[in-house]
């Protein structure tokens, strides 16, 4: 296994971390409309992710930065080619971050409602668009001989990619519902389990179609294993949710996310962005990667820093391990 293969794996790991973590906080954002019945409940939901959403988002920045450093051509083609969808994602992430931090800083109801609306849409849109973007990466897009994107905006919204969007949206929302059941007390906890049930079923249908389509189109032995794990984990997550085993349900919905991402990356390898025009114009781990020297330095850095990150991020979840209910909200919202 050469270093550029290692970095392919590491970037897959970073995206997995991102979708696992921000997946549930996107889901919680969507649930502020889907699950919460009143404003205190919406506050409970927002506070389940309050201390952690920012750290979760850094997984995206790291995935982006690592792609830039390890596969500059992949980074360049992806971000210039998928310009407008990524612009939409960026705008959402900007507004979303501000919404979380500023919503409670004024007591006026109109102010808070505005930011709550923002939280819903800016969670829903990226949750959908990431699926569209990854659907296109796996399926391949028109790349010319210089590895430049030669398609149009419309090309990115093909049925396969749109289905991918639906999968990420439903899967993340399911993941968020399971997380909510794990992190809350009272009525909202019970209803979160109910929401997770029907969301899980919708996810199961859309994900099964999408993953089997991917397998038929691009898959190999490895991706088949990941597919089976993803589907099995999803079914077991649903069962655990039904049985009220919330910790298990969350671990298993997380495993579904991880196995799905793994499956996409396994069907991609050794390409990183296939060209639909000519296989010779595809970006691969070899022709898109940085020099061995750069990759070696990065490997050292990742080897030392990643375990530390996992350690202190897990510690954060432990510090904030208490469940939250309406009774725990600070009385004065405008702190």
């Amino acid at each position, binding site marked *: 296994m050469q270093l550029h293969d290692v970095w392919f794996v590491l970037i897959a790991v970073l995206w997995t971390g991102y979708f696992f973590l921000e997946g549930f906080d996107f889901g919680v954002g969507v649930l502020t409309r889907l699950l919460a019945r009143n404003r205190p409940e919406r506050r409970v939901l927002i*506070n389940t992710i*309050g201390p952690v959403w*920012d*750290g979760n*988002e850094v997984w995206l*920045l*790291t995935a*982006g*930065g*690592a792609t*830039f*450093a*390890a596969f*500059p*051509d992949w*980074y*360049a*083609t*992806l*971000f*210039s*080619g998928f*310009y*407008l969808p990524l*612009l939409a994602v*960026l705008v959402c992430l*900007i507004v979303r*971050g*501000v919404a*979380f*931090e*500023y*919503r*409670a*800083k*004024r007591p006026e109801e109109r102010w808070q409602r505005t930011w709550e609306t923002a939280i819903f849409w800016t969670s829903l849109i990226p949750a959908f668009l990431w699926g569209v973007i990854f659907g296109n990466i796996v399926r391949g897009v028109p790349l010319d001989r*210089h590895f430049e994107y*030669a398609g149009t905006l419309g090309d990115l919204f093909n049925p396969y990619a749109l289905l991918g969007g639906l999968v990420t949206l439903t899967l993340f929302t399911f993941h968020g519902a399971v997380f909510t059941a794990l992190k809350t007390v009272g009525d909202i906890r019970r209803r979160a389990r109910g929401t997770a049930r029907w969301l899980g079923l919708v996810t199961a249908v859309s994900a099964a179609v999408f993953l089997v389509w991917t397998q038929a189109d691009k898959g190999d032995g490895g991706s088949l294993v990941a597919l089976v794990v993803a589907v099995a984990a999803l079914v077991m997550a649903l069962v655990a949710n039904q049985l009220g085993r919330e910790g298990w349900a969350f671990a298993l919905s997380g495993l579904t996310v991880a196995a799905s991402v793994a499956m996409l990356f396994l069907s991609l390898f050794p390409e990183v962005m296939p060209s639909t025009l000519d296989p010779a114009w595809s970006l691969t781990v070899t022709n898109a990667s*940085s*020099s061995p*020297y*750069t990759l070696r*330095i*990065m490997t050292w*850095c990742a080897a030392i*820093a*990643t375990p530390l*990150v996992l350690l*202190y991020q897990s510690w*954060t979840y*432990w*510090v*904030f*391990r208490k469940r*939250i209910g309406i009774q*725990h*909200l*600070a009385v004065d*919202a405008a*702190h």
Partner: protein
Amino acid sequence: MDLALAPETLARWQFGITTVYHFLFVPLTISLAALTAGLQTAWVRTEKEKYLRATKFWGKLFLINIAMGVVTGIVQEFQFGMNWSAYSRFVGDIFGAPLAFEALIAFFFESTFIGLWIFGWDKLPQRIHLACIWMVSLGTILSAYFILAANSWMQHPVGYRIDKARGRAELTDFWAVLTQNTALAQAFHTLTAAFLTGGAFMVGIAAYHLSRRRHIREMKTSLRLGLVTVVIAGLLTAVSGDTLGKVMFKQQPMKMAAAEALWDGQQPAPFSIFAYGDVRKGHNTVAVEIPGLLSFLANDDFSSRVPGINDVNKAEQQRFGPGDYRPNIPVAFWGFRWMIGFGMSSFALGAAGLWLTRRKFLLPEHLRVGEDEVPRLVLFRRKALGENLTRWYWRLAVWTLAFPLIANSWGWIFTETGRQPWVVYGVLRTRDAVSPTVSQTEVLTSLLVFTALYAVLAVVEVRLLLKYVKAGPPELTEADLAPPTRIGGDSADADKPMAFSY
């Protein structure tokens, strides 16, 4: 295509707008993190309540500010790929690594510990909670260093070779990229300027309250902390600016000649206070100068020769082929002056303030004030400032809050436009760095979207800051004074509300 709307021009405007905007928040974040941490340390050590109130007050302003810094930073990470894909392909092997390091080491640190700090008041024992804000501070400084090392490589590329076959620059010595003198000087200058910014921010807001005789205890402490920060950081900004200038005279003589509107090399070279010139003909029509000073700034020697714009342009034409290698001279010239002028004005106001509000052992008995009184502004040994002058000093002190922000912006505009037409000096031209397949419409769309969004957020942010500035330090609650002893919080009452929630 109309040059004003060429994708390169639009992409440059977009980078300029998003980056200058982002950098309004960065220096405040860096310095307020450390200053808040300092105040919280004082609280933990002395248990004086004014320190805790001050910590909460400045911490709140810090949080409003860092939120904007974080979200506008996301754009910074991705716009290289969006608008500058040719640049990304060409330099990714070198430039990507510091960015990845920044995310992996600094961003995770910052974002995780800020969450712990915001929500941790009733979840973490006092000292661990304090350690969290220091971690945030460390994260902001590390982050700055990595990104400045990356930028320094664009100013003065080192530790690389050109791979002709793959048509890109490749890293050969990462240590050189991280520790070259450009990076050290830039980091020194940027960090000291950041503290000047935060110090002035504190001085301005403390002056606002003191001139209205409100929250006197906390604001006197804040004023002093702010003034001391402004004076020390201001001095160091000047020293580091001089160092960076000397480095730049060697590495980018064009930038510095443009900064001085020095058209033809002179020995000794004068420092220009004011100039008005004809760019096309390549000379100044009006110039007010101090003889010899530029020679000194460039080479520590009042009689040395400094090359001019026309000399460097010729030399670069010989090295890199025909073309115009001059940046926008008026922008460089005035940007340089506004940077120094605004930065040093806030330093001067800070130094004056530190003297005027000096402690009682330097004052005669009748001019001393008690702990709950606004300090008298005392100019000479026995003479306090009159009412009018006092009012003016407080007013100026409030304004000084904006000066370093303006200086920082012009500093970046100067150093980035002064490097043109290069994006990586001597290696890659800006016009060869843009994304070849991104259309004019796409760049224009994102330019308009970001500008509009940032404008709206600026209004929201400033109004929120004003609200919290005017509100002053909060009253302390019982929970504030009884921090938990266990990690995760003491569980005496399972239904007790959290000390903080969104």
